[in-house]
């Protein structure tokens, strides 16, 4: 019986859960929107080539709003969905009893951090 004297340690899960939740929204909204416009409407010619010309995209990604448009797109289309995906993989590994504990956690979230850093690096440089 818990007599209230011993308090359990706070879990760090809120951090990963918050990234997972934010990534879920991006997966549901930003990814389908991006795929629709870039992978469906554009090849079908329903979005003019002008709209995605080098100059226009370069301006949107690197110049408009101090370049924050590009940062927001990388974050919403790559980084946050990555954290969403690895969170599911991490918990899936636990559910299947294939791997649990700190090693699986470091590999999963480490991969998301590394790939996010590469994506942000490519945008930044």
């Amino acid at each position, binding site marked *: 019986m*818990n007599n209230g004297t011993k308090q359990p*340690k*706070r879990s760090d*899960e809120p951090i990963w859960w918050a990234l997972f939740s934010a990534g879920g929204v991006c997966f549901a909204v930003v990814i389908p929107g991006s795929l629709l416009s870039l992978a469906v409407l554009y090849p079908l010619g329903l979005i003019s080539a002008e709209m995605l010309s080098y100059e226009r995209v370069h301006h949107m990604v690197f110049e408009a709003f101090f370049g924050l448009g590009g940062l927001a797109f990388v974050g919403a289309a790559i980084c946050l969905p990555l954290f969403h995906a690895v969170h599911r993989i991490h918990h899936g590994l636990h559910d299947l009893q294939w791997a649990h504990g700190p090693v699986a956690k470091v590999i999963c979230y480490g991969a998301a951090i590394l790939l996010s850093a590469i994506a942000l690096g490519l945008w930044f440089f």
Partner: protein
Amino acid sequence: MTQTIVIARYNPEQDEKPHHEAYQVQSDDNTSVLDALQQVQQQDPGLSFRWSCRMAICGSCGVMVNGVPKLGCQTFLRDYPAGLVITPLSNFAVEKDLIVNMEPFLEHLSAIKPWLINTAEGTQPHVQTPKQLAKYQQFANCINCGLCYSACPQFGLNPEFRGPAALALAHRYNLDSRDQGKAQRMPELNAKNGVWTCTFVGFCSEVCPKKVDPAAAINQGKVESAKDMIVSVLKPSGAR
């Protein structure tokens, strides 16, 4: 009409492991699983199972029916024309036949302090508006039957998980305008074995005979726990 039911039997003094036995029972449209078990008990007085109220209030008669946690009194043979297999509640240790040891559940329950914590002195009643009542009322219908623990795969993997009913009741008291105990309950919710073991499978809410929706309560608890973490980081003392 006559129907065959299969019951898991286990007598720890005689049997090495549980086994299944088939029994014939008389059934009509009104025959519940609990009625059928009582008929079997007439044939074999050694059959052990818990029951009390027969009206889905006491929460004693929980069993697995074809692998799904159910209250015996609320489940009817008419819904199982292909037959039914009655086994003890999953994720708990079997003591005898359909009786399981509910002690781990009761420990989890008491750990989250499921009662009103209010230090205010005085004889005046704590007035509550319908709006304040509506915030927690759904989560107050729990009868502690434990079906949600048998439904929860995470409790099955990790018996230290506080579990659906306990966390739903923690949320119920945290939402109560008369309660001041949230700060005492949050450390349990914030822990690894608190709300954060839940992966929102949602089967607890499906099997709940009182429509408490523990899955929703736990996930609202995750939001509370995340907010609590932010507050603890911003607080200079870091007391919590």
